[in-house]
């Protein structure tokens, strides 16, 4: 398989206007991935499938990642005037990087026997901008797995032929794989509690009433 850098160059030539970034994976496996913007993702996917040198004809896996809002510390050097002299002061600034949901596709080429190519897409935030284009029109195998990502993470795939919950029931409102999900508290009886479970069991033993789970979007 050709290098990610050259794949990226060819995508940028084939799909004008697309934003493609390479996300490096620092671990020993070194599976670097391509981050594609949602607007051009479908065109990029078609290119990856139809290009004669790539021919990624098989999407083996679709999964989701939930990234919470994180506080990032940055060190900024500024020059200030103190006692008539100019001094360089280092300040730490904190800013909150807004969270987002990410969908990861693993692509293989059965015809050319190479892969995987890891393709990522990110939503705008975790609340209302959770729409991403569905890649089911390109790879049929994405259908059920995108439904699973919709069910468990709450990513809405535009263009999906049948976007329904697949594991949980239709009336269910939460997205259980999100990091801020609170599961229903039904730990009245726990013979061997430990860690977080011990806390729940202790609350039940001392006669406490379980709090209502907060509604998550």
């Amino acid at each position, binding site marked *: 398989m050709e290098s990610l850098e050259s794949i990226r160059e060819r995508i940028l030539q084939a799909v004008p206007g697309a934003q493609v970034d390479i996300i490096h994976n620092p671990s020993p496996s070194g599976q670097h991935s391509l981050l594609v913007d949602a607007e051009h993702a479908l065109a990029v996917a078609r290119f990856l499938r139809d290009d004669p040198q790539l021919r990624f004809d098989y999407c083996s896996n679709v999964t989701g990642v939930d990234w919470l809002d994180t506080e990032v510390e940055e060190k900024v050097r500024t020059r200030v005037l103190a006692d008539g002299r100019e001094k360089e002061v280092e300040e730490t600034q904190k800013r909150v990087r807004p969270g987002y949901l990410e969908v990861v596709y693993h692509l293989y080429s059965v015809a050319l026997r190479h892969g995987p190519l890891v393709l990522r897409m990110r939503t705008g935030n975790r609340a209302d901008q959770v729409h991403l284009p569905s890649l089911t029109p390109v790879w049929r195998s994405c259908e059920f797995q995108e439904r699973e990502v919709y069910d468990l993470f709450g990513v809405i795939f535009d263009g999906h032929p049948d976007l329904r919950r697949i594991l*949980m*029931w239709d*009336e*269910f409102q939460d997205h259980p794989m999100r990091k801020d999900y609170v599961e*229903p508290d*039904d730990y009245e*009886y726990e013979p061997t509690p430990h860690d977080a479970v011990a806390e729940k069991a202790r609350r039940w033993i001392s006669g406490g009433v379980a709090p209502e789970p907060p*509604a998550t979007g």
Partner: protein
Amino acid sequence: MDAGLRSELQRHGIFVTTLEELYNWGRSNSLWPLGFGLACCAIEMIAASMARYDLARFGAEVFRPSPRQADLMIVAGTVTKKMAPQVVRLYNQMAEPKYVIAMGACAISGGPFKQGYNVLKGIDRYIPVDVHIPGCPPRPEALIHALMTLQQRIAEESLTGPNRPRHLRPDQPGEYPVPEYGPHDLVPPKNPEIWHPPVIQRPV
């Protein structure tokens, strides 16, 4: 009747029994299980019913595909919250007298999935269970043992008097409420009339 007198009479070719014993003997040796499995425990249940372990020796080989013809429900496997209403509905559709064996760690308590969000923490939250079998999965011998335990309990049932079983009491329910799918959990999450969590005494 005195056991010594009975064996003495038997030696002379006279068999004495009571209607109750005859009735229970017939019922306990012809339990018809409902043929359904929920997870890997079902594989052990199938193995128990086939030639090697041969559940037919105990009169329980006729797995029925309809709840109307079955009188034993073997809850074999993980009961997810999505599946629980269907299991309760199948139990309600069975004719009295009916019995339940909860087979495996998941069916009795949620098992390894107890800390999860989508598995029911024991089918005894919604329907009365007669015999619990621990194990992950229990071996076919354990299922046979559970069946023998159930047969023993049926044989000990008295058909009259204050200790008569549930199906002979008109005031006892034969059907239990089917939980509904709620926005966060099953509604209600348990049937408080039949599920009483054991009280654990330990230093807080």
